[in-house]
């Protein structure tokens, strides 16, 4: 296990969820789940389909509000924050990678990647320069001027990784980022994402079905029926 996790904030984990419950009608997606993510840690969320991994991720990122329980980021409860503050938090501190369909189809790759910087008020020229540099690092600079329709799934996913990384977020939330890629592209995308994360000490919460991808993480947590499975605690 490389990169010793550092505990940030008020002496606790960077992101801490306690007693999260979320229902969709009769479906209980999360059932009193408690989880802490340390700063700089790369955490993999495993578990069968429909166990509530995506729901958990969205709750941790403040996109979905749990029915009960609290999510704290740096010791501060997300539920106490106004929507504008949450939006700002997501923009400045969080990055996101999803399985597919996250790039704005009307914008070119560079414009998509520079979007988070521009949203936080950076000059467009500068933002696009940095975006291009990052795309070069991820070896997709030749697609810089293209739109999603003109890219392969793997290329689009690298662009998405670049977009998640560009604002140097504290936490990256990734929901099956390699789900629609072949093994090689999956490895490459994961390698790039995690290398960049380790280099900067970024915390990563990663949902995946593939143990191989989970092996990139420092720690695995298995979600089962909306709770953390206790058998899976690694000695």
């Amino acid at each position, binding site marked *: 296990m490389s990169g010793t996790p550092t505990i940030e904030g008020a002496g606790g984990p960077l992101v801490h969820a306690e007693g999260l419950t979320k229902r969709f009608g009769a479906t209980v997606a999360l059932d009193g789940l408690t989880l802490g993510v340390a700063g700089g840690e790369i955490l993999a969320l495993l578990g069968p389909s429909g166990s509530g991994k995506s729901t958990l991720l969205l709750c941790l990122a403040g996109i979905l509000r749990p029915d009960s329980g609290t999510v704290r980021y740096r010791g501060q409860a997300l539920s106490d924050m106004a929507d504008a503050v949450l939006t700002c938090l997501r923009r400045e501190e969080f990055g996101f990678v999803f399985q597919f369909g996250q790039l704005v189809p009307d914008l070119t790759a560079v414009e998509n990647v520079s979007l988070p910087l521009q949203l936080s008020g950076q000059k467009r020229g500068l933002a696009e320069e940095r975006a291009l540099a990052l795309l070069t690092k991820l070896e997709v600079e030749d697609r810089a001027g293209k739109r999603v329709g003109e890219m392969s799934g793997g290329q689009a996913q690298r662009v998405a990784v670049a977009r998640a990384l560009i604002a140097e977020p504290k936490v990256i939330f990734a929901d099956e980022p390699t789900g629609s890629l072949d093994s090689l592209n999956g490895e490459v995308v994961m390698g790039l994402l995690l*290398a960049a994360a380790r280099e900067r000490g970024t915390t990563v919460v990663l949902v995946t*079905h593939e143990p*191989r991808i989970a*092996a*990139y993480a420092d720690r695995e947590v298995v979600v089962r029926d909306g709770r953390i499975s206790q*058998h*899976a605690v*690694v000695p």
Partner: protein
Amino acid sequence: MSLGHALLGLLEDRPRHGYELKHLYDERFGVSQSVKFGQVYTTLARLLRDGLVDISAVESGGGPDRKLYMITPEGVADLEHWLIDPQPPSTFGRSVLFAKVVIALMSGRPADEVLDLQRAAHLVRMRELTERKLAGDAIDALACDFELFHLEADLRWIELAGARVERLRSPRTRDVPE
């Protein structure tokens, strides 16, 4: 993995001593377990007997490992034949795991638990391999990936087997994942 063929492959670019072959083998293929000197020498003796290798020189100075082995034309032909011949799916080393999981499931232990425990154990190894892969060169990566994919396959099989067994126990309440 046939040790004989691996040795033939290592001899193809130039003649080597027996001890050199052992170290090279460990470096390239011995990811899961290293080979013993004795194994290397018995295998080389068999290859010599079959005319697939020859001794190109014996250096004076005593000791049994002063012989320099080289591959013969017959040896090259045999290696080539082996390379293009598809490998039968190997269960080498996995019969133990198989037996263990089957016995565990059949003995009525919860499938989730069997899976999670096995996965935890597997993941420790997989994380090591991933780290080595990220640090090493392409050859290392190939070797690591080989084992990683097999370990992953183990886990997937356990997952499926667990679900099947669960379904046998309580049909309809649970679906096979994926």
